[in-house]
């Protein structure tokens, strides 16, 4: 580790919080999808897509830092990916919020803590955009420094990355089951199309 100490470790773990946070959001979405039986609409899936797209920016920076090849320009590239991904996801969230903005509209799905999932998604995208902006403002002092190889923090970092990849793999399976043999989701899904197609 360089002599920058906490100045390098704080952004490193901040990026892990981002990765783990969105993995948790995705697992919660799975609970609502499979536990409560709510089918995600195409805009819901696109917001998950935006979360992955954005988190890949954080993963990009983390993996470069772990390999010890992270430079200021690569750091900016990763945060740029995160920022653009969050902006794309936020655009979808705003679209869905606008769809249900009229008085009396119950919204899509059950609210969680008083807000619908797409509103929560918008809040998380905003947090990510602010995080990226602040980290870019603090660069190059905010360039992450990875903990030493084979240390406990390094294993924790590896575990968080694996959780994210596992959640991404689960989403691949989930969307194939939901979409079946089609390029796009139905506008208002009411069943798992792959199951319907296979069972006739």
């Amino acid at each position: 580790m360089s002599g920058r100490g906490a100045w390098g470790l704080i952004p490193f773990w901040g990026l892990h919080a981002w990765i783990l946070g969105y993995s948790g959001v995705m697992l919660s979405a799975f609970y609502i999808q499979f536990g409560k039986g709510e089918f995600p609409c195409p805009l819901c899936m696109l917001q998950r897509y935006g979360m992955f797209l954005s988190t890949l920016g954080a993963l990009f920076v983390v993996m470069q830092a772990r390999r010890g090849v992270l430079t200021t320009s690569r750091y900016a590239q990763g945060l740029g990916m995160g920022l653009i991904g969050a902006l794309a996801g936020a655009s979808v969230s705003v679209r869905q919020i606008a769809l249900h903005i009229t008085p009396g509209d119950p919204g899509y799905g059950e609210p969680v803590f008083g807000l619908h999932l797409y509103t929560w998604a918008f809040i998380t995208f905003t947090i990510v955009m602010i995080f990226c902006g602040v980290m870019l403002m603090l660069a190059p002092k905010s360039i992450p420094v990875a903990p030493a190889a084979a240390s406990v923090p390094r294993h924790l970092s590896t575990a968080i990355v694996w959780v994210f990849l596992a959640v991404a793999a689960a989403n691949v399976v989930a969307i194939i089951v939901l979409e079946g043999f089609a390029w796009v989701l139905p506008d208002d899904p009411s069943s798992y199309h792959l199951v319907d197609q296979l069972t006739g």
Partner: protein
Amino acid sequence: MTLLFGIGVLMWRGANRNLVIGLWVLALVAMLGLFRYHVTSALDLSF
């Protein structure tokens, strides 16, 4: 989503940076394309 998972795996395995960024841009374009489709298909709007 498969593409996004693939990009994640490539990052983990330390694939070429330009390949990763190129695929990420492709995934972004695909997402925007899907967004446009789902925004305009049901309402038959055009922007």
